[in-house]
Structures are given as C-alpha cells and as structure tokens.
C-alpha cells in the first residue's frame, strides 16, 4: 500500500505540474483577454511534434530549446492576425475561432506528420532509473520533467511578482481596462503574453511527448482538462490554477492507482445485487473507470455553485 | 398617498457607503427631479428602486408593497419602468421590434411560444402609436444600433414609457445632446409622461427647473433638501454643496 501511495503521489505531481505549465498560460490569457483559448492544448501538441522533427536531425536537447520558441512565435502570429481580428465581434466569436483553430491544427498535424503515433523518444542520457523504491523504478526522465516544470513554476512566479513586466501583467489580469488607461500598450502585452503562454504549452508538449506518446489526438484529451483547471482555479488567479492542476493531477493518479469500486463498497455494506440487470454497470463501477469523468463533474459543479472558481477574484 | 416611499435606505459596496440613509416620498402624478454633485449616489438610488441592485438596509415601498431586493423584471411588472444613462437598447433588432418587445409584457404576451406576434393588431397599433409619439415612425425598420445618438435616446425613452408604467425613472435623459436636441427631448418627455409619476436624475439645471415640480438634492448619499424649485434655489445648504464644500450634516 505505501508504495502505491508514494508512486501515485509522484506521478500525480508530475501530471499536475505538467498541467500547470499549460494552465498558467491559459489562465493569464483568459484573465487578460477574457477568451478561453480552445487551441491551447493544440500548441502543446505542436510543441511535441516540432521537437520530434528537430530531434531527428539535431537531437533532443536542440528540440527542447527551439521547439517552444517556434510554437511561441506561431502563437504570437495567431494572436496578431487572427484573434485580434475577431476580438471586435465579442467573446463568443473568439471562442468559436479558437475552437476552429484547434480543429484545424489537429488536421494540419495529420497532414504533415500522418495519423499514426510518432516514435518520439526521451534522450538516452536520461534513460535510467533515478531511484528504486519498494522494488519499483522511478525513471530519470520523470524526474527531469518534475524538475523542468518546478523551475518553470518558480521562474513564472518570480517574473510575475518581482519584475516590472510581471506587475503590469498582474494589473492587466485583474483590471484590464484600467491598465490600458494607464498608458500601457495592452495589444502588445496581449501578443507577448499569448506568445509566451503558447511557448510554455509547447515546452510542456516537448517534455511530455516521449512519456504520453506523440499522436494527433493528444491535444483533444488534454485540452478539455486544462479548461477545467482554469475554470476551477478561478479567473485571474495563478495560485488557483496551480492548486487546481495539482488537485486534478493527484485526483486522477489516485483514482487510477486505488483499485476500489462500487463492488468493494457494497461488499463492505454487505449488500448484494443481482448479476444480470439493466443497471449492472452502475454497481460494477470502478474508480479507475470514473477517473476521466471526475474533472468534468467538478467543472459543472463549480460553474453552477461557485462561478468564481476556487481562488478566483472575478466571475 | 405617496406612490413610492423610501425609508432608511442604505447601500454600500464593500467598505464605501454610497447611499447612507435616505427617506423620501414620491406623490402619485408628480414630476420629481433628483439632483446632486457627481458621485452623490443618484444613479445608485435608481438602481435600488429598479432592482438592478439590492439595498443593504432600509425599505422601498411601491404603492405600499415592499419591493427592495426583488429582481428587475418583477419590479417592472409591478409598474416601474426606467431608462438608462447610456443608451441601453437591443442593437440588432429594428426600432419597431425594440418598442414592441417593451410592450410584450403589458400586452399579456408573457413567455408564450404558442402564439404568433405578427397577427396581433392591438399590439401593432400600440407599437405604431409609441413610434409616432417619439418621432421614429419613419425609421421603424432600421436596426436600432444604426440610428443617430439622439434618436437612440428617444428610443430609450420610448421603451421606458411604452409599457404604460405608473412610475417612470429617467436617468439623465438628455445627457450628451445638443441644446436644441435637449429642448426637443424635454417636450417629448413632457408629452409621453403626462399623467404619470416621473422621477428624473439630471445635471442640466435648466431642464430640471423646466420639468420638475419638486426637487430633492442628494449629496454624499443623503437627501439634504427637498422642495419646490424656489425653495431649493433659496436653500443655503444646497448652495454650499454646489459650491463644492462637502456637507456632512
């Protein structure tokens, strides 16, 4: 039991911090521009694919640096020539635009890289078990992922709280109109933030690609989850996004690790249900099966009962 | 018998108190203006009466019935209509549709989805009448977002009075208009609110003295004077307030 707990916690932490790399950019974009970027996870996917192609020619480490920069540049272009254009038509049009973009990027990825899974590998340098606990190995690459996302979090935190740019962004998150009135070039900040946000998503893709497999559907599953995190964490709150990322990461990790389900519960209560029944599925349900549903249940509950989110400042 | 009475009305947003204890009565059929310096809480007072926000304390009674904190649509159904400082219309609907929508509830249309609106002659006639009175009959089919600013103000006014509410609240009805436009607007207001109770917030003193029979002065969330135009002109506290000295009586 303790080994399951330790590994579930570590894996949950890796997933959670990875999710935060996506959620941090999305939260800042959402808070500043009021638009939830449906295509955010698509940039994450692009990061993985770019890094894969680069790694074929120049190795993993070049991809680690170059791919996020490429993704960020692409993101900035999308903001400048796409989003800004639909901005005048309101939030609904923006949301529809990013939805279309997500659709388009998925098709474009299939066009350039094909529909099959790409063999994007972790570097050999990190291909060894970092430590062995209770007879189970924790790979060095996962440790590397943990380290990267940790340092991104710290760097982001430092930039946002200590630097001048960070202060302007913080101001723009909570009081977008006021910041514009104070003479800051808000459109430029938008483009910049969008670029950095998508670059972070790209970086997440680069380091997650080898572990979570690089295939055209990788954005779809993660995209909705990141949405959920931003909404649950609350508009205008990076701490909320971090909290929600870890929450979702750990929740899923534990749910998959804990092999319990309704049958165990029923057995504990001493209740027995007939084996063949139309509602059979309900009382043979296992927690691992429900794990993918939990975030969305949480999303709907939060939106209905606490639209501000956990730590949000605005609705 | 007063149609609307406010008792000990208070409203605070966080730590700042905007309305700090207002007691005021409005008589049926009177034309009552509320004046005061910027930030005195005039618009907030309207928001409280019309249901846009709920009072923190105190009582609002309309024809004897407590309405404080009710949602706007319930208050409107009881017979209180309002206009807004900034044009607040349905921009993609035609001018005709804007007025007709404002007439739906009092025509008994409700939320029905089994009755067509186009064949209802009485509704059509009432809409045309209102359009005629506000001088927009010629632009009936133009989208409301595409007409001139002063026309939008007239439309706003038309929507407020269309439903034949007993009490009409007008929030700076001539703001942003030129002098001649404002004069036309005053005539229009006089015409369409005949026989109704009118409460208006306005900065332009000429218009206030022209339209209102009674004037109340709101300063820092309190009514410091209430009376006829002459009484208000002569009131020393009002002079003081308008000279810029804060009055914390």
């Amino acid at each position: 039991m303790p080994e399951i707990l330790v590994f579930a916690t570590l894996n949950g932490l890796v997933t959670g911090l990875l999710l935060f790399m996506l959620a941090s950019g999305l939260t800042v974009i959402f808070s500043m521009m009021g638009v939830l970027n449906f295509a955010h996870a698509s940039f994450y996917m692009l990061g993985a694919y770019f890094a894969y192609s680069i790694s074929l020619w120049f190795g993993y480490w070049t991809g680690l640096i170059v791919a996020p920069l490429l993704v960020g540049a692409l993101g900035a272009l999308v903001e400048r020539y796409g989003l800004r254009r639909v901005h005048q038509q309101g939030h609904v049009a923006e949301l529809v635009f990013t939805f279309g973009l997500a659709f388009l990027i998925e098709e474009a990825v299939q066009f350039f890289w094909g529909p099959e899974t790409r063999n994007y590998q972790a570097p050999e340098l990190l291909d060894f078990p970092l430590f062995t606990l209770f007879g189970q190995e924790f790979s060095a690459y996962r440790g590397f992922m943990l380290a990267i996302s940790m340092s991104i979090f710290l760097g982001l935190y430092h930039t946002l709280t200590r630097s001048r740019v960070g202060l302007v962004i913080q101001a723009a998150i909570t009081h977008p109109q006021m910041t514009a009135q104070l003479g800051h070039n808000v459109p430029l900040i938008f483009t910049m933030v969008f670029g950095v946000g998508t670059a972070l998503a790209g970086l997440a893709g680069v380091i997650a690609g080898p572990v979570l497999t690089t295939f055209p559907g990788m954005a779809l599953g993660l995209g909705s989850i990141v949405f959920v995190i931003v909404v649950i964490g609350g508009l205008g709150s990076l701490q909320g996004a971090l909290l929600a990322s870890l929450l979702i990461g750990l929740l899923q990790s534990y749910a998959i690790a804990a092999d319990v389900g309704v049958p165990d519960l029923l057995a504990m209560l001493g209740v027995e249900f007939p084996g063949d029944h139309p509602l059979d599925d309900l009382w043979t349900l296992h927690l691992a099966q429900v794990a993918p549903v939990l975030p969305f249940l949480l999303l709907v509950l939060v939106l209905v009962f606490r639209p501000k989110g956990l730590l949000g400042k605005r609705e | 018998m007063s149609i609307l009475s406010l008792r000990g009305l208070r409203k605070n947003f966080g730590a700042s108190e905007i309305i700090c204890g207002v007691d005021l009565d409005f008589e049926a059929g009177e034309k009552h203006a509320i004046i005061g310096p910027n930030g005195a809480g005039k618009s907030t007072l309207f928001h409280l009466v019309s249901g846009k926000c709920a009072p923190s304390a105190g009582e609002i009674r309309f024809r004897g019935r407590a309405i404080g904190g009710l949602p706007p649509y319930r208050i409107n159904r009881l017979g209180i209509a309002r206009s807004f400082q900034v044009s607040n219309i349905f921009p993609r609907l035609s001018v005709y549709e804007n007025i007709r929508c404002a007439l739906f509830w009092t025509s008994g249309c409700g939320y029905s989805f089994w009755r067509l609106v186009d064949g209802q002659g009485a509704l059509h006639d009432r809409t045309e009448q209102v359009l005629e009175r506000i001088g927009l009959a010629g632009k009936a089919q133009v989208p409301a977002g595409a007409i001139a600013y002063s026309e939008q103000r007239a439309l706003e006014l038309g929507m407020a009075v269309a439903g034949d509410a007993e009490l009409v609240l007008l929030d700076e009805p001539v703001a942003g208009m030129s002098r001649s436009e404002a004069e036309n607007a005053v005539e229009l207001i006089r015409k369409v609110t005949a026989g109704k109770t009118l409460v208006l917030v306005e900065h332009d003193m000429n218009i206030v003295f022209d339209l209102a029979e009674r004037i109340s002065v709101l300063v820092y969330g309190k009514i410091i004077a209430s009376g006829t135009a002459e009484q208000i002109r002569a009131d020393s506290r009002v002079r003081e307030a308008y000279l810029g000295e804060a009055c914390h009586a």
Partner: protein
Amino acid sequence: MSKTLKAKAGLWGGYLAVLLLLPQCFDSLLAISILNQMTIAIIFALSYNMLLGQGGMLSFGHAVYFGLGGFLAVHALLLMERGSASFPIVFIPLLGGLTGLLAGVFVGSFSTRKAGTTFAMISLGIGELVAASSLILARFFGGEAGISGDRTFGPPLFGIEFLRDVEIYYLGAGWTFLATLCMYLFTRTPAGRMANAVRDNPERAEFIGYSARWVRFISFCAAGAFAGIAGGLFALNYEFLTDENLNLATSGRVLLMAYIGGLGFFIGPIIGAVLLTLMNFLLSNYTELWLLYLGIVFVLTVLFLPRGCAGFVMMHESAWRRGTLHLLALPYLLTGLPALLFVLAAVCLAELSHATGPTLHYLGLSLARDSALAWAGPALLAAVGWILTARSLPRLREAWERANAAEPERRT
C-alpha cells in the same frame, strides 16, 4: 390574404415541393442516402441556431440531446423487436424529441443562468460528462461498439413498412418540413422575439419585464427537443448509434454547419447543412484531406465572413435595393477567377504530397509524383493566382464602396 403572407406561403410551399421532389430527380441509392443525411442535418443545425444564432448561447455539447434522442429511439426499436411495444415508427422522432426536451429541461435548469463563456463551459462539461458516461454505462449505450436496432418490426402504416431508404426519406422529409415550420414559427412568438432581445442585451430585457434566464431556458429546451427529433430520425435512418453521436466531434460538426451557413439568419443553417453534407459526400470519397479543407474554410469564415454564407448574400441587399449590383459583377469576376486558380493549384499541391499511387488524377490531368514539372506547374499557378488576387482586391473594395455609397434610386 396580404401580399407578404402570400409570398411566405409560396416560399413554404416551394420548400415542401423541393423536399418531396428531390428523390424523383436523384433516385440512386447513394443520392437517397445523402438526402437522408441532409434532412437530419437540417433539423439539427436549425436547432443549434435556436441556441447560438437566436439566443446567443454558444454550446459545445449540443450533440448530447441529439444522441440521447437517438439512443432512446434505438431502444424503442429494440423494444418493438422483442414485442414489448408496438407503434408506427413514424412517431419515433417524437420520442427522440421528448427525450431531448427532458434532457434540456434538466440541464437548462442550471446552465441558462448566464450566456457567454460560462454557458459555453457548462455545455462543454456536460458534453464531456455524458460522452464519458456513455462509455461506462455499456448496457444502455453499448460501449465503444454502440447499439443497433431494426426499424422493420414496427406495424406498417398505410401499408408502408419502411424497408427501403426512400420510404425513410419521405418520413424524414415530412418531419423536416414540420420541424422547420415549427422552428420558424417559434421565432415569431413572444418567447422567440425575446430570445433575440436577450441575446442582444440581457440587462435591458430584465427592465421590460422579462427574466433573461427564463427566456434562455425556453429556447434551450426547444433546441434540445428539436435536436432530439433529429437524433430520432438518425436512429431510424442508420438503425445504429455509437458514443460518437453524442460527443464533442458531433457537437463541433453542428457548430461548423450553422456557422458556415450563417448564424442569425433563419435560412443560414439550412444552407450550411446542405452544403456540408454534400461536400462531405462528394469530397471524402476523393480525398482524405477533406477535414483539413473544412478546417481552413471554417477558420476563414470566422475571420472574414462572421455571418456565414447567408450573411454574405445579405451583404448585397443594400446594393441590390440601390440597383447598383451590376457595378460589382466585373470586380467579383476579376478577384474570383484568380482566387479560384489559387485554390485549385494549392489543393493540387496538397493532394500531390498525399497521393497514394505514383500518379495523381486531378481535374482530368495525370500528374506523376516524381516529375518536377508536376510540382512546379501547380506551384507557379498558385503563385500567379495569389498575386493576381491580391492585386485585384483594391479594385473590388473601391467598387464595393461605390455600389453602397450611391444614392438609392428614386422610386416613383
């Protein structure tokens, strides 16, 4: 009868006639199957327009009501197969509609409090929840494999047993006409008019006596019901449903249809449904890149034609009334032809890069993948098309301004 009423009656008569005559003109098995899909898509897209176009509610989960209606319809067919129930299958779509309505009442009771992003997120959450649950509850939804029924167990109606696809088409056409008419009439009721008003300005609606939430709720339920009818028709047509029929992919497709066709115009979603179904059939047989093209078309529509195809046509209303439409004909031709050249050449390059065999057959040409000319030719044409299009644009813009600035011609 007044003149406009006569014109409207004529329009609806024409619509019914087209629906009834189509299988006479196109009677191949493939054509009937396309037509069947079209009728389903029309109802579904129109119901989506009730939400987004008329009510201002952006939904990413509209397939839930479509799918639930469809699943219940298949279960009804299964009941008949087992002999537990018996009624003419003409009423199956009604059952689907009731299911959609009930689901709409339940979800709408908490999701219509606000429009905008909040509503969109709740719809996404509900959509993902239902889609994921459908895989868990394998008994009812059939898991990954889905469930299938057989429509021929219902009692025959007037001797029709609905064995052939064309019979199902007439059933579907009848329901399509009825549903279209009902949805149109809905827009002319107080609830429908107020849906537009609330879309434009929910705050103002509250000050003329209407609860914005209640107005949205009514539209939401109605949209759910009509989506359920479409789902029921789908079940009758395919006799087979999977989890894909209620997940994000289907919800996205209906959004694309309604948007490309034109939101806010009643006829827009019909155009979108017909166009996309037709393109889907025509192109997906020839190219595996069809979804890529669709994605590009969609993003371009959102960027440059926010009111869709119907909006593009309606843009010319003012020029038409001024009698200046002819000013635009030549500039349109001068921009349109090079643009067409560019699109055809670009598509040729894309297809060439994904051709399965050594040669690509394209517009009557045979292009060898390994010949440099086969690549250089289209590339050159694409470049020429692009440059000519870009150059003609100022002229088109100028013509547009002239056509719309001219004084309207006086009518005597």
